């Protein structure tokens, strides 16, 4: 066991953008093969810009904090730019994660990719 950074705890305590979007333009649904957790990401896209994003997560403190952080990082970004956000960037924005918890940030990155994929599928 390693302690979480203050930033992680702050996002865990007050998660940003938790919940669901009613008529999303894309939904990502991913599960972790490592510990069995599930993350869902909903996005609203207008003129190729992510205007709104929400998440639902069944997982640990790090999973909830990375979900929250990724929603903050992608909101207002163009879809292509958002896709460049790596799990490392999410972890870094949170002041780092314990090594055993890096896979939770991978889940966040994958949830975003899957939401964007879904968005593309729906719009083409």
């Amino acid at each position: 066991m390693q302690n979480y950074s203050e930033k992680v705890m702050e996002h865990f305590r007050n998660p940003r953008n938790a919940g669901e979007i009613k008529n999303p333009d894309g939904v990502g649904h991913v599960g972790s093969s490592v510990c069995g957790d599930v993350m869902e990401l909903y996005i609203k896209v207008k003129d190729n810009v992510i205007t709104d994003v929400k998440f639902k997560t069944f997982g640990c403190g790090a999973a909830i904090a990375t979900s929250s952080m990724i929603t903050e990082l992608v909101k207002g970004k163009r879809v292509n730019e958002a896709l460049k956000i790596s799990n490392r960037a999410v972890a870094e924005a949170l002041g780092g994660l314990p090594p055993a918890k890096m896979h939770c940030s991978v889940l966040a990155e994958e949830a975003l990719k899957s939401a964007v994929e879904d968005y593309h599928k729906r719009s083409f």
Partner: protein
Amino acid sequence: MKRIYLDYAATTPADPEVIKAMSPYFTERFGNASSLHSFGREARSAVEQARKTVALFLGAKPEEIIFTSGGTESNNFVLKGIADANKSKGNHLIISAIEHHAITKPCKFLEKQGFKVTYLKVDRYGLVDLQDLKRAITDKTILISVMHANNEIGVIQPIKEIGKIAKEQEIHFHTDAVQTFGHLPVNVDQLNLDLLSCSAHKLYGPKGVGALYVREGTKILPFMHGGDQENDRRASTRNVAGIVGFGRAVELAGEKIGREEKRLISLRDKLIRGVLDNIGRTRLNGHPAKRLPNNVNVSVKYIEGESMVLNLDLEGIACSTGSACASSILDPSHVLLALGLPHELAHGSLRFTLGRYTKEEEINYVLEVLPKIVGKLRSMSPLYKTKKK
């Protein structure tokens, strides 16, 4: 913020009386219990006094008690020591599937050395089956080890009956009594035990000291080689202050044992009922009655344990979980899986363990705070939504 400690199965605070008893053995009575002079003698007689106390509590002889560094050492001592000293007789050991890692890991080690280990399945409450045990015994079986009560789900095993079977077959029988020693009556003859592990810090004593009971005449390899301490079975300068503290903790436990058991059972059941009645989709893990007086283990569906523990901690409540996310190897608790719990329920498990300083107001506070936390996490859970539709 007030802090509420409900993790007594992990460790307990040392009783102030224990500290008082220990303190002179760090300073004016600092002698080495192996020395000849007066400093040595006073240390030695304190150690022997503590040994008598522990022996008396177990219904054993003082010579049958070996002081160790704790439960993990005692368990390693038994498994490796019995295996090695009895390998000419056989190479088979039997343990339950829900033993502590301090039993299962040494067994994995022994398997690599060529020993065979049977892991007895448990039923949905966590109990081993005596028929299964009988079937598992072969003429190569040299040790049966089944824990007295499980640290996670609190289930109490039929130790006496298991011991009877072992005795009839002349197989060494060991129990890991770390969770029961000092909390429930434990008599080595009544329970048909040859070996027993216990640890001081689970009964308001200091960390770093424990004991192993070894029935007279049992062949066991010494655990540490060096000086002739502990009858040549465990070399190393004795932890005099720790042993004295252990002895005092056992005395205090003996004075409180029956009354404290009743008090805890009523608090325990209040907490269990409060959770099951007020939070939907929860279940009790372990046996409702054959259960440690201080153990509450529940699974909360659709949410994950670590995030519950952290949220409770933010409200000042300390407890633990068997969730995969909270384990360093990211596997859910082997104990919960052995009960047949699906991963999702093992994931959402919470353990509260009560103790000497637990008050009813604290239980009320948990019952007030927990439903809110569950509600918050469920509102964020993708599984909860799916199930609602």
